[in-house]
């Protein structure tokens, strides 16, 4: 039975956006934790660690997100690890995101001039103390605009979770389109909702970047 695409459907779509945001938040947490580890590993003096991390980042950045999604959701169960769509999506997005976020944060850490390290060292601070009191505080300000930009990427990426059946905004859109036979109207609505989530963040990231340029 075909129903009309009505206001109620729009509300359901907006409600589904909740899951998009929830998935984004989860994936961001995962990416952040892993990304921080990667960033620090990349600037550590331990050669093999740097090399290994760089290899990981290259591999992840060189494969499509869909591959990770399907590998984890369809592949792992065959090895005896059971995963539900949520876990699979969260894991896949975290792995994928950590490579990009890690690079962003490494860039922020690396952009702090060598002279800052030298100043800290000359005062007798240990590497950890230098990181904690001198380098990281300055890096955070630099890292914020691109991190917000990354968040936008993440929100868009969550749409791929639909391909493994997870009900977030895009999947809800597919179901609604099938039920109402009005794909154009449905997907336009879906696009508008994504835009409403992403655009403010994009603008915020830009204004943050401008403020940063002024301050420098």
């Amino acid at each position, binding site marked *: 039975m075909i129903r009309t695409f009505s206001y109620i459907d729009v509300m359901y779509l907006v409600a589904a956006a909740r899951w998009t945001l929830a998935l984004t938040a989860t994936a961001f947490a995962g990416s952040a934790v892993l990304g921080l580890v990667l960033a620090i590993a990349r600037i550590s003096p331990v050669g093999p660690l740097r090399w290994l991390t760089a290899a990981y980042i290259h591999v992840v950045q060189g494969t*499509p997100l869909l591959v990770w999604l399907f590998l984890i959701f369809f592949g792992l169960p*065959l090895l005896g690890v059971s995963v539900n769509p949520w876990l699979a999506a969260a894991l896949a997005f975290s792995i994928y995101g950590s490579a990009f976020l890690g690079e962003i944060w490494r860039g922020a850490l690396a952009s702090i001039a060598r002279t800052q390290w030298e100043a800290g060292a000359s005062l007798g601070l240990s590497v950890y103390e230098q990181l904690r009191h001198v380098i990281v505080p300055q890096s955070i300000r630099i890292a914020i605009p691109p991190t917000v930009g990354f968040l936008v990427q993440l929100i868009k990426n969550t749409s791929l979770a639909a391909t493994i059946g997870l009900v977030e905004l895009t999947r809800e859109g597919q179901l609604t389109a099938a039920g109402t036979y009005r794909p154009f109207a449905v997907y336009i609505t879906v696009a508008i909702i994504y835009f409403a989530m992403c*655009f403010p963040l994009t603008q915020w990231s830009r204004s943050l970047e401008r403020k940063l340029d002024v301050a420098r």
Partner: protein
Amino acid sequence: MKYGLQFRDIFAAWDSILDGVLVTLTLSVWTMLGGLAVGVTCAAAKVYGAGWLKRVVTIYVEVIRNTPLLVQLFLIFFGLPSFGIRLDGMTAALIALVINLGAYTTEIVRAGFEAVPKAQMEAGHSLGLSGLQVFRYIVVFPALKAMFPALASQFVLLMLATSVVSQISVEDLFHAASIVQSRTFRDFEVYTVIGVLYLALAFAFRGLFAGIYYWAFVRR
């Protein structure tokens, strides 16, 4: 663990996989060309165009960059038929990808041109060169050199992103994976192999672009 990793079945389905690679490559290359053309045109419009044109381009860029590629794809493939425009998978995929890449390319091209210092153009004008001459002899080459790395990066990302077209049944490399999977039921191995293939393609493209950069901009 009762499951033994078995790659032999995957290699037996090699021809399906190769067909998929071909489709992915074809789609990628055509999209890169199309996306670049769109990007250069829109960047020019943004820098030299009238006020209303600038606004149209800005809206295009912002809408595309703040919505997912998958949704854009669905809109074109599933949505357009409502208006009587029924496209086959490949065509819809190409259009969606070009529109998508075009938006990102516009920004990269624009940044490349803005990276040429104003002082360079002033020196050119002061020597009596016309606007067009300044553009051709002084701006174009440094701008291309400036935008090349970001462009190459975006193109590799695009090649990987073409995997989404599998969702509208275009028989690209990722789609080939599901064919092999339905035959062998060895999901883990299939997606690992496909992943490695994408990695190889990304590596190849990166190398190609690095080579082009070296040949065009570094050697003298």
